[in-house]
């Protein structure tokens, strides 16, 4: 499992971990049932504190991406990818609606907005 941590990012380190693990699971890079490193091993490999990986794993457990068995380790939980995709799409829709509202407030046209999105997307 490869995880890249940026120390200068505004995003907290535990969030960087949860996001990367989630995306590895959603893209199928990490398969259901696959063992992931223990939080202590991961902390050592990433050279960060144990409490940070602990928090990341706790969040991943809470949102159902992984599960842990005492003495055995942590594993990728069964995922209903369809459902997750739908949920994500729903969130994206909401966020786009907010963007549209904001754009209208300053009179940004659909064309201009699309251009902006294209630039940002391709960055």
């Amino acid at each position, binding site marked *: 499992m490869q995880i890249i941590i940026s120390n200068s990012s505004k995003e907290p380190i*535990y969030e960087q971990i949860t996001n990367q693990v989630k995306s590895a699971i959603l893209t199928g890079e990490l398969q259901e049932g696959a063992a992931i490193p223990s939080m202590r091993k991961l902390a*050592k490999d990433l050279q*960060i*504190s*144990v*409490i*940070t990986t602990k928090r990341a794993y706790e969040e991943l457990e809470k949102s159902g991406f992984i599960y842990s068995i005492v003495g055995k380790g942590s594993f990728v939980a069964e995922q209903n990818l369809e459902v997750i995709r739908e949920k994500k799409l729903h969130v994206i829709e909401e966020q786009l609606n907010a963007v549209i509202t904001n754009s209208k407030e300053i009179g940004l046209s659909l064309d201009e907005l699309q251009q902006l999105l294209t630039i940002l997307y391709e960055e």
Partner: protein
Amino acid sequence: MENVVELKNVAKKFKGFAVENINLEIKQGFVTGFMGENGAGKSTTIKMILNLLQPDAGEVKVFGLDYHSHEKAIKERIGFVYDGNVFFEGLNLKDIKRIVAPAYKRWDDDLFYKYIEQFELPLNKAIKTFSKGMQMKASLAIALSHHAELIILDEPTAGLDPIFRRELLDLLQELMVDGNRSIFFSTHITSDLDRIADYLAFIHKGELIFNQSVHEVAENYALVKGKLDLLDRDTEKAFVHIRRASTGFEALTDNSSEVKKTFGDRVVIERASLEDIMYYLKGGIHLG
């Protein structure tokens, strides 16, 4: 057992200096960083944890036991690494091992030689010929060779070069893969703590200011910058210390969410580094 060490309302007075009302917990399986400026009371506190000093008041418990009835059992399970050489200078590591090993029931010769090899330490050279880094490694090798569950390091990185400091941090992280081990690490070099500390205890002028997880510290403390006209008697209460300049103010808060509520977008709120926290707390504290 969740806490390997518990200090309750501990106090110790000296002429002209005192630590007072110390309530400190060291969590099992984690690294607790103990920070504070020189003379803040770090070593006094550590000596009380090790029973090298007895508190005037309060209670010290290690592994849930007290020193009155369990001194030997407690010390068997602690490894202490001290800044500087604690051994007789003229002795070599072989001699020191011969003296120290019988003192511990769980002394492990194989482990000792493993660390000697890993740290590239000479067995037959007098300790006085060792560099500062080598002395630290020797002291660490001995502390680790009796399967200590609690490792206490007093300013282990003081006077070490950056490469060796990093090696030491690597090693401590390796030790933490074992979840039964706990580390208590005093330092005034805050960058050491950024990397490995899970919990932080901060002592200032003999008083424990906080004992929180690194996440709590990051959530509570923040640097706030803004224009001077935002400050008045009420709004100032949110800050621990304020530095005023003609260009504006910069202040430390221990209640970041309150500041967000009060000032909103009118101020810049940034993450406070441990060094910021130490610096601003040193400038004076008005808590609450």
